[in-house]
């Protein structure tokens, strides 16, 4: 007992020191602008940089300097250490940035939530200095989309894998809030995928795809979408690409959306340096419907823009309710 107490107090001390180290240097550091770190010079990442800069100009924040570093060309990220804010695009960039000294504020973009959590844990960084705009759309938004597209829906099937299984409770709760019966199946082995998918499709009105590389990947897209289509059940995807492949609809955030949100954070951070907002889901989004799939499944769907407006309105009322 005694020993454990001692270890406890030791960790408290370490923590204290850590917090001290985290905040003190900031007061002395001069403003050095924003550094965007690219995992790779992909089109998406380059578009992000452009949109980000445009957003700064549009909001009259010309004074913010933006430096871009390509991780593939830069061995050492150390140059970014004195930035006021590091925006890491992609998992590789965020992993590298998480190894910077703990005083450099880092925000990840194009980062899945599970990866952000893993990096937060492994880097030992604190939330105020390490944050992200995750790629995961809020479940409430996805459920709202489903309810808007299929007002008659009663049961929703979800397949969970090793990564996504930790969100089971959240999904169930979100369904309950919207009087939607959510049935979950956990896939432990690749061979279970199709039988469990068939089981879920037989007893539910639709399938919601929750990103998990062990379930939804390039190779499984064909059997999942074909099987669902043959059961004449719609799939709600998580990306534009999945909708184009054959899912019925998805809410998604494009580069522009994420750049706008990141710019907002950057501007705020400039005003209150060293205190990043907590990790957040995408604020701006679009709706994409595969109307050919809708037609083939004989589902009457309004146009994407109208659905988007409904979702926006819903989120505003939800927000209002939360405030009261």
């Amino acid at each position, binding site marked *: 007992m005694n020993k454990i107490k001692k270890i406890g107090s030791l960790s408290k001390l370490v923590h204290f020191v850590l917090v001290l180290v985290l905040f003190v240097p900031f007061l002395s550091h001069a403003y050095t602008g924003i550094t965007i770190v690219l995992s790779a010079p992909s089109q998406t990442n380059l578009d992000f940089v452009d949109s980000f800069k445009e957003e700064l100009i549009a909001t009259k924040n010309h004074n913010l300097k933006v430096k871009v570093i390509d991780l593939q060309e830069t061995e050492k990220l150390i140059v970014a250490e004195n930035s006021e804010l590091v925006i890491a695009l992609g998992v590789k960039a965020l992993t590298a940035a998480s190894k910077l000294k703990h005083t450099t504020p880092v925000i990840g973009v194009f980062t899945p939530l599970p*990866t952000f959590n893993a990096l937060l844990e492994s880097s030992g960084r604190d939330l105020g200095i390490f944050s992200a705009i995750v*790629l995961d759309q809020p479940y409430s938004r996805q459920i709202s989309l489903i309810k808007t597209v299929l007002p008659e829906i009663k049961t929703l099937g979800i397949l969970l894998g090793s990564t996504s299984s930790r969100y089971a409770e959240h999904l169930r709760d979100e369904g309950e809030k919207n009087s939607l019966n959510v049935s979950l199946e956990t896939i432990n082995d690749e061979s279970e995928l199709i039988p469990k998918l068939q089981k879920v499709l037989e007893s539910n009105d639709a399938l919601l795809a929750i990103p998990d590389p062990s379930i939804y990947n390039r190779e499984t897209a064909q059997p999942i979408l074909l099987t669902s289509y043959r059961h004449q059940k719609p799939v709600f995807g998580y990306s534009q690409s999945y909708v184009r492949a054959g899912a019925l609809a998805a809410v998604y955030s494009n580069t522009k959306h994420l750049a706008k949100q990141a710019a907002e954070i950057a501007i705020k951070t400039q005003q209150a340096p060293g205190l990043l907002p907590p990790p957040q889901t995408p604020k701006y989004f679009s709706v994409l419907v595969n109307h050919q799939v809708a037609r083939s499944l004989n589902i009457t769907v309004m146009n994407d823009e109208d659905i988007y407006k409904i979702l926006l309105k819903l989120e505003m009322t939800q927000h209002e309710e939360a405030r009261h």
Partner: protein
Amino acid sequence: MTNKKHLLLLMLLVIANLQIAHAKEENVQIVSEDDYIGDVPKVLTVSRLSQPLSDAPSAVTVIDRATIRASGIVDLPEIFRLVPGFYVGTNAGYIYNSNHVVSYHGMATAYAGTMQVLINGRSVYTPVFGGVKWSELPIAIADIERIEVTRGPNAASYGANSYFGVINILTEHPSEAEGNKISVTHGDGRNEAFYRHGGKLGDLSYRITTGYREDDGLDNRNDFKRTRLLNAQADYQINDTNSLEFEFGIANGNRADGEAAKDYVLFVPREREIFNHYELIRWQHNISADSDFKLQAYHSFDRSNDNFTSTNLRANAAKLFIENGFLPAVANAFVGTFLNDQVSINNDIDTERFDIEAQHTFSPVSNLRVVWGGSTRLDNTYAPYWLGTKATDRFKLQRLFGHVEWRINDKLLMNVGSMVEHNSFTGTDISPRASINFKITPNQTIRLGVSSALRTPNYVEEKFNAKVIIPRVAPFPAGVAYTFQDAGNVNPEKIVSREIGYLGDFGQFSLDAKIFNDEISDFISTPRIPNFVTPGFTNLAGRARSGENGGDVLVNGFETQAKWRLTKDTNLLLNYAYVDITANEDDTTSNINQSAPRHTISALLTHRFDSNWDASLAYYQTSKTTQLGDGNPVDLIRKCDIRVARKFSSGNWNGEVSGVVENLFDSHDQEFADYNTLKRRARINLRLDF
């Protein structure tokens, strides 16, 4: 000492923590942004998406796996009893194709040739007698994903011979069939065993099914069937926009044929060997989000080995002469001049088909969907007896087709299509169609359609030149033509079909109804020609036949299909059809007005008791009918089938035991002809998936 202990403990804890952390890292897959926003190959491409029933240009019945399973059938054609307006006759015909007859709106012989039948887009329609040799198809029922039946001509989409309707059988995609499946059936006059393996090798998914079927046929008929089959299907995903599909199938076995009471030459009871195989390759290319291209080529070969010797002819021929008005003494003297007692006939038939088809599907603007393409086919037929030559006959066919679906607005949809076909038998023909679908409410549709189709004559009607010559002793010249069939050189049969359809979908209840009017002209029949002069031979009066174009036939009727979800676990499928055929029997063929039952009813009730037990009850009723060709008058039939199944699983094994009783009340009704008596039959099936 205490300090050392502390240190040791701390170290242990650190190590333990490290191990935990390490273990955690291994468990958690690092999810990258590509897992969220990376490209996914397009799966439901524009050509893979079918029209919903409410947009289709004609009435369509979809039979899914669940229905096939619940029906408890072992013979594939039996499933069409659940399609309104369809007639299914057990074991029709005596030779070459003593299979089920499946027809729609009547006018069919044992070799019903009025419908196009496709398996994954490959035509299995046989050119010799027409129709489909159902029991010889190298396909296992368990591999079928669903069957789409277009009720009405659809030549604009599927080509000529999509005359009264189109049956499109679609098998499960290989990627959905991973693992192993064993199915064993034992019952009255029936034993079956099938094994299937599905797997994946990188970007290649495949499925192989092999099986053996023993069918003892009906009582009092020489109609047993033994079939071995192997079927393989593979899909190779080259990249995001290209895939290759391969199919292969082979079947062989023995068939008992013949019916002594009907004819003592051609229908002499005997056994023959069948053998067939096919190979198919299909390239699917996704050009863009709204555009697909497909190129398909296949080859199929079918052989029936049937060399036989007739019964003793003298007595029977004498009887025939007497029946035809000869004095017994003259008749007996005449048969005395026969050289031999018997004749030998080489009824081997080989057919071979090569077919290439290209199809482009695209959507130039969002409310327009266009399919167009072309195909070319070569059919080689070797049938020395029927064609009167040992030379292989070549039948060539070229097609060009186009179809446009135009969504005028939310309520109005128009389908327009046409096909131009050129073939060696009848030259160039055009089959157009048009329909308008009007959504009166979001879940109710009215459809008005008119479509025309042509039926290219089969070899029986067009080219048969068959004779059985009984040689005579010197000094009598030549021989006696016992039977003679002359080349018809007929024109194609034409159909113009008009329909008004209604579709309503009310959640638990859906209804599909249509009234139709089919106008057939140039009806082809193969009547006997009483005064036929057989060149060079003495003819047995009344035994010559030839194909000819006859008069007009009018088919009017009404059919409906209702699906009712009574409770969460109870479903009812109900079909009714009223078919009225009117034709002048002097100009067409006798019994044509009775060639479809006036009323057909079928129903399937399924119920799931719990997650393991389920049962279904099927009811089939057809009113009296006289089928053409080898058919003869049969009365009203009522038949009830029952199926009970229990699922079980243990570890990695899933299974099901099911029992089926066909014709529960042992009604002893006759089907298709008076020689086919239906009796009660039971069987049990065990299925294991692992």
